[in-house]
């Protein structure tokens, strides 16, 4: 078998289905409402896709270990509040950004220790995180909405989230950069191979001499760092951070994107391209609900139905291949 052929089966297996679904939804929406293809609409979707894609990729790495991170939304609130308050108190902007990302990494380390050393279940660890970080965010902010006002002293920061370069939103460029790096990490690096092995069979990986704990730990740190990066983009995108609601249930979008992108919740499977497509699909869906005048109360139902359809199709194709 040549590399070309294996690449082909690889594409057919992981990403082609979701790509087809994405194209279908885009065609359908643009046929019904030509506004879909207007540059402003596309730019807006791409901007959000950038932010969602970055943290979805981080979450996907945790999902590949067979774990999960339910705390992402609350981490957005905590880090958003932290960033706003740091800048408010005149911290040097570069320092504020680094501290925010560093906090994200520290949360990843904490989750990693609890999962690998203390042997707690990831669901439990991050469920507690979801509750705890939200509570801390609200307390630290005194339950007041924080904002960046006119961004005095750090005028160059908000445009990272809100402006375009060559007509394409900066967040999307950033996602592309992150995706390329993570594609290499997951599909070409030694760590990526170890991650896939540990995710599918931690025992077999240990018998091959892999330090499974360190691999899992790194996945949680990657997730923490990317959540940190996304939290900065999201904070500047919304420009205000209401600690009680900021980022609410975003972890579910991330998990949905990972699963749509071919990550199995049982672990050991995943594709960077798939996750990016998954995150894009979710944004297109949200846009579709607006543009096709579907009552916004139905948005979640539509999203849920499409995810279910995607996962079902995948499962049916998988069984057919096996038979």
């Amino acid at each position, binding site marked *: 078998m040549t590399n070309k052929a294996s690449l082909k089966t690889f594409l057919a297996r992981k990403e082609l289905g979701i790509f087809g679904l994405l194209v279908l939804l885009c065609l359908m929406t643009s046929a019904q409402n030509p506004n879909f293809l207007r540059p402003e609409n596309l730019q807006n979707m791409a901007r959000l896709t950038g932010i969602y894609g970055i943290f979805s990729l981080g979450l996907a790495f945790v999902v590949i270990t067979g774990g999960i991170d339910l705390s992402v939304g609350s981490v957005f609130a905590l880090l958003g509040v932290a960033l706003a308050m740091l800048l408010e108190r005149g911290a040097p902007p570069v320092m504020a950004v680094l501290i925010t990302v560093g906090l994200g990494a520290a949360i990843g380390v904490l989750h990693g220790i609890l999962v690998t050393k203390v042997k707690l279940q990831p669901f439990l660890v991050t469920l507690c995180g979801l509750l705890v970080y939200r509570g801390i965010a609200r307390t630290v902010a005194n339950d007041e909405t924080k904002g960046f006002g006119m961004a005095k002293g750090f005028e160059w920061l908000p445009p990272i989230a809100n402006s375009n370069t060559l007509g394409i939103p900066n967040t999307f460029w950033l996602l592309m950069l992150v995706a390329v790096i993570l594609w290499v990490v997951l599909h070409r*690096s030694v760590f990526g191979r170890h991650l896939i*092995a540990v995710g599918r069979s931690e025992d077999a990986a240990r*018998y091959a001499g892999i330090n499974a704990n360190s691999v899992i730990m790194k996945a949680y740190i990657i997730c923490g760092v990317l959540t940190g990066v996304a939290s900065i983009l999201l904070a500047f995108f919304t420009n205000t951070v209401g600690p009680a609601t900021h980022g609410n249930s975003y972890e579910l979008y991330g998990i949905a994107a990972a699963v749509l992108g071919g990550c199995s919740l049982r672990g050991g499977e995943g594709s960077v391209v798939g996750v990016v497509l998954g995150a894009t699909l979710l944004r297109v869906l949200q846009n579709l609900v607006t543009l096709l005048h579907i009552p916004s109360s139905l948005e979640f139902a539509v999203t849920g139905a499409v995810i279910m359809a995607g996962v079902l199709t995948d499962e049916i194709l998988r069984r057919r291949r096996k038979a």
Partner: protein
Amino acid sequence: MSGLVPALIMSGISKRYPGVVALNNVSLSVMPGEVVALLGENGAGKSTMMKILGGVVQPDSGTVTIGGTPAKPASPADAGKLGIAFVHQELSVLDNLDVAGNINLGREPRKFGMLDVPAMHAIASKATKRVGLDVHPTTPLSNLPIAHRQLIEIARALAQDAKILILDEPTSSLTPTETATLLDLIRELKSQGVAVVYITHRLGEVTAVADRAVVLRDGNNAGELAKAELTHDRMVAAMVGRKIAGDISYVPLTPGEVVLDVKDLTTLRHPAGKASFTLRAGEIVGMAGLVGAGRTELAEALFGITPAVTGTISLSGKPLAITSAQTAIANRLYLVPEDRRHHGLVVSLSIRENISLPDLANMQTAGLVNRVQENRITQERANALTVKAPSVEMAAANLSGGNQQKVVLARWLALSPKVMIFDEPTRGIDVGAKDEIYRLIRALAAENVAVLVISSDMEEVLRISDRVLVLRNGEVTGSIPRSDATEESILRLAVHHD
């Protein structure tokens, strides 16, 4: 006592698995109120026989008659309805339920569709009394010591009003006092007309309680022993039977210096059993022992999967603390584990990915896998061991057992092993592929590797070993040179004499 109709007749039972004949025309009958010991070495066919009776597997041919009526147990639930109850060696009680919950499991008395708790407690109390255990029905199983859990398992079998009771190594986790209680209980059941099939390696118990013994060997009936013949020597002789012909292709090698020196090593499973032995370069040492003797635990301690509790390990004269598989691998001590599909391989990955898994560090540039190098090296290794597959990109899951084992071997062979440990290297592998594995093991020894082969297959141990170590309860009870190694001499050291 209705002594006329046998409680159980299994007649002409045959069962084949791919490449293996597990049972060949085997028969067994038990009268009501009779205790029949089923004897045989590991792999003689005892457990397949009991799986057929329990409805877990179906025989290819042969008949089962229960109480004079032909029966075909199609599932464990079916077997239960036929009045057959099992007590397994591995505990199958649930430690998240209480005593009553366990004893009534699957047959819970109901009232208006709800659990009838008073009835459950009454049944449980009666059953625990019969096994001589004084526990309250609401005691959580997790609060009971292992021995008591074993008794609960027996109580569960009794609560079914079983006509036929199968006990598979029921005393392996019991103390001598508890064992005595159990044997009394069996005598009591016997007087109540229950037919008992008793499987054990503890021959003393057979002498104490059995009326008769049926011996299996290599999936065939190998004779019966009447009560008067149930002596230790007679039983061992019957289990071993024939002498195994020596392997004509065996070429003795001159072993070199001591490579691995293990002193007083203990594992979690046998905290009191201290294992001490040495392995020499170019020597193939077989390790025999009964199921539960602690062989796999020993191998995993040496490989650092579950580090040893106490004891010292020296490699080439230097003491070495093996705390993880990484330490073992860094010192060129490798393990081919017993469970290929869960420990040996990541079966969803390709042959290439499995072979390169422990060695990626040597096939990388700046953290990235060098695919050209990886393809070339893994292809070479797969070819060297003649792994039969259309491509190294094939998932390991789709390979035959023999080829899977070659993939596990291919992974280590290229990492110039100093010590190789094989745990059941040919389990589930067909005869032809077995010979290939033996050839590869020999070749390793010829290259001065110290080889330890753990096996429950007596023929295999005798065929491949330069020397045989026997393990019993975590302790090395003997080291037999090839010239003196016979099934009998090994079994004598492996069984319990109490």
